């Protein structure tokens, strides 16, 4: 007899993803008048939260061994640094 899989978590994640998507659209709509900086920060935060939900629960990374989690997560440290430095530098050259 194969193990039973509890599906409640999947539906909770699905609901969270749907709610976050609606919130993203509301924040992005020009008619909502959200200032640029809070808009950018909130949209990036919501996108990364949604990506984390998919990775942790749908891809089951939460239940994997520590070594696999680190194998997947650690390589993203440098691209994140590159993103902040390079995009920031491009913007800086524009406004200085």
């Amino acid at each position, binding site marked *: 007899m*194969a*193990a*039973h*899989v509890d*599906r409640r978590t*999947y*539906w909770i994640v*699905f609901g969270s*993803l*749907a709610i976050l*998507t609606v919130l*993203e*659209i509301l*924040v*992005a*709509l020009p008619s909502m008048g959200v200032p640029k900086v809070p*808009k*950018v920060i909130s*949209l*990036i935060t*919501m*996108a990364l939260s*949604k*990506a984390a939900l*998919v*990775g942790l629960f*749908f*891809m*089951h990374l939460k239940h*994997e*061994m*520590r*070594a*696999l989690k680190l*194998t*997947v997560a650690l*390589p*993203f440290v440098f*691209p994140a640094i*590159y*993103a902040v430095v*390079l*995009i*920031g530098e*491009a*913007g800086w*050259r*524009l406004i200085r």
Partner: protein
Amino acid sequence: MSAIATAAAGSPPVAHALPADEYFGSASLGKIGMWIFLLSDAFSFGGLLLAYGILRGGSEVWHHPGEPSLGIPFTAFLTFLLICSSVTMVLAVAAATEGHRRETMIFLGLTALGGIGFLTGQFHEYFGLVPHHGLVHEGLVFGHSAYASTFYVITSFHGAHVLTGTTYILVTLARTAAGKTNANDIEVLGLFWHFVDLIWILVFTFVYLL
């Protein structure tokens, strides 16, 4: 050793043939291999999104007059479609884990439908399913601006992944119908499909919403 000997004898090696590893537990070689592939694929997308950010961050005018805006409501629908297909995929994995082949096949079929729906939507967005509609006809032309070119490169690269994933699902569905798959095969397929969804979440935010 025993797994190698089994494979050499002509029988298909099974996922649990190797003993649990000290660091990676019972994760199969196929699963670890897919994770490593997805990492390399994520860096490809990361490079594209970085280039997009640098070009956009350093440009005085990003959205030129005459170029159409991207349709957020329609793309939000496509995003929701991909999220739904991720749910049906994870339900297929759950069904496969429990040994329910028919249920697995139903959810794989629904997931493939989600992929086909997304691809149809993307075609409509680019070229229009009716004449004189679509971004190409409205003036968003590859090569005319960084805004247009980065849009087409990033979204079409993702679309190629959806096409690959949908094909992968349909092949796995046929193999499941023939009784040639196990739960590990479905889980590895699921990793790829969820990755396609995960990447779209980021593309939707950076390219459409910001």
